[in-house]
């Protein structure tokens, strides 16, 4: 669906079901340079099981208008504005990679609005490889190729997507190339590299939090994810083996199972 946030027309997938304000809201926040489509194997389940779902395209990404936001802090404030814009008081947040930084910061800033937090492939800081950052800021498609290479675990490089016929390295790459690389991936990578408040923000979080980590994640390794989780009171950690950073595609079913158990227990549908 399309709606306005801070004057810009924003797109969010509602998981294939009509958006219903009477149902609890789950907001999914994508990673650097990507779009709402990375969440398709998680969102549709919740949309069909009693939740209202918004898998967002951040400003300037996917089908959303406006310009890419330049800092994680601005993105965190923007998520709060999304909740206001759709007429809700509260929501559950799910983030992947950069989306984890955004949702951590948002939860720390707006503790009354956020009811549960689910982090996939998250860390307290995501410093960027300087070569990768430079390529992305120059709009070089090689940045996308490198990201897709590093973001998939050894098994993920072979494929074996749960949706028959989809080859996820190319699908992810096409998502990242769907808009101008330097204006999406370049801006996002710089925002990640500049963000230093993750660990401090984590200490402020007092809501049920889940970290899903993957054994073969080279971008946000398990030890970095655990370091972050240790700072969040009562945080749960689930580790997916034989899987890389793109866990939401590489091991979509296993991720969905963990996420489903966590959200339905801590943020039940009516």
């Amino acid at each position: 669906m399309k709606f306005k946030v801070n004057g810009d027309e924003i797109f969010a997938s509602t998981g294939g079901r009509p958006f219903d304000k009477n149902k609890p809201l789950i907001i999914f926040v994508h990673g650097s340079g990507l779009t709402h489509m990375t969440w398709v194997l998680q969102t549709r389940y919740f949309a069909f099981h009693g939740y209202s779902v918004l898998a967002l395209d951040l400003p300037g990404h996917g089908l959303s208008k406006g310009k890419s936001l330049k800092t994680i802090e601005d993105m965190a404030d923007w998520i709060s504005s999304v909740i206001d814009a759709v007429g809700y008081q509260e929501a559950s947040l799910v983030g992947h990679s950069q989306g984890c930084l955004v949702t951590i910061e948002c939860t720390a800033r707006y503790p009354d609005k956020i009811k549960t937090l689910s982090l996939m492939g998250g860390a307290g800081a995501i410093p960027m490889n300087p070569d990768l950052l430079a390529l992305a800021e120059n709009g070089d498609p090689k940045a996308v190729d490198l990201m897709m290479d590093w973001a998939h675990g050894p098994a993920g490089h072979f494929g074996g997507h749960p949706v028959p016929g989809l080859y996820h390295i190319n699908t992810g790459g096409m998502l990242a190339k769907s808009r101008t690389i330097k204006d999406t991936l370049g801006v996002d990578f710089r925002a990640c590299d500049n963000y230093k408040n993750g660990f401090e923000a984590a200490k402020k979080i007092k809501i049920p939090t889940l970290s899903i980590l993957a054994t073969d994640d080279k971008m946000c390794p398990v030890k970095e994810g655990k370091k972050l989780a240790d700072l969040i009171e009562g945080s749960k950690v689930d580790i997916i083996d034989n899987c890389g950073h793109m866990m939401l595609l590489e091991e979509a079913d296993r991720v969905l199972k963990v996420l489903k158990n966590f959200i339905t227990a801590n943020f039940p549908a009516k």
Partner: protein
Amino acid sequence: MSDKNKKGPESKTYKFDTLSLHAGYQPHKNAGSRQVPIYQTTSYLFDDVDHAAALFNLERGGHIYSRISNPTVGVLEERVASLEGGTAALATSSGMSAIFLTVMTLCEAGDHLVVSSQLYGGTVNLFRLTLPKFGIKCTFVKPRDTEGFKKAIQKNTKGIFGELVGNPGNELMNMPEISKIAHDAGIPLIVDATYQTPYLCKPFEHGADIVVHSLTKWMAGHGSSMAGILIEGGNFDWMQNDKFPTMTKPYEGYHGLSFAEEFGPTAFTMKARAEGMRDFGPCLSPQNAWNVLQGIETLSVRMKKHCSNAEEMVKYLLNHESVAWVSHPSVPDHPDHALAKKLLPNGRGSMIAFGIKGGKDAGVAFINNVKLASHLANVGDTRTLVIHPASGTHSQMDEATLKFAGLSHDMIRLSVGIEDIDDIKNDFEIGFRAARKPRLVSNQ
């Protein structure tokens, strides 16, 4: 070393030959079986009612019924998508069903397509005779008439379709230019790249949006199994205009789902499977999918030999007294030689068309007397194949259509196999000797 010469990080995603053997399959998820298992089953157990509903609602990936998807077929689909550089693929029972499914996913009654005139005869008949019965009309344009494709586009045109190298005349479409024409008109370019396989050309790199193959040919390569596939490039924006309501508007068949919004770079394949396979059902058998996978494992090895043998045969035919003309993109005076060099850097393919002196009678004598080359209606076998198109593959066309498709009565279509090249030439000598005999008799 100065910073200028510093080599940055390189992507280590697997390359073509490795993907040919491994893409789409993880042994540890299949009892450790090194070879892809053949899932010879019609249907799949649901964990519970919720799981069943999730699969039917496209909430989760997985298999329901082998008409829609099958794990062995799924490996083939991913493998071909990876080799083509596509986002997704859907395998079908034959190349023709891949084309039909592509058209039926793209078009509705009242729509129009612009189509290259030089196509396999069955494809010509689909576009010329069968699709009009569904209310889908086509305008044929000669493959080299790039401007003609532009002129033929109408308000209701939903795509341009063609074979990159036309069957059987070996005329090339200028794919990069024609893709620009298509994209300027907000419509996709669909390319049948059966003759090339992704080893010789990846059409997505030259502007194609959807690629179709008859996998029966070089991809399977051994003349054993029928199969087809459609592959999506993932770059076409279905929401850029209002031409594709079936992709962008809520679809009643899946609770108001918009395929373009929900699946983006894989939307076309998702719709072709969810609607096309559900309603038309031209599914590929798991055994045939497995056979094709065996072929793909050696694709690059075979294609190199096919192409080197073809180039040898081109030289042989060009210098032969019984041959009137030879058409192959490797011939320097072929009108598309330069374009072929650009689009087919790894080889120009193994399809040769040549004219035999003495016309139709000589052609018939040649075909009836070769012993090693097989006379049959197929191409892309490991074995050398020959046919006289005007009396075989394209025999259902009238005289005018034959002429428009660039066919002549002296034309022989040769699909060069990977036998020893000397044996192929020796066999052709037998055929040519027989072909000369009627003329020698009549001259006396």
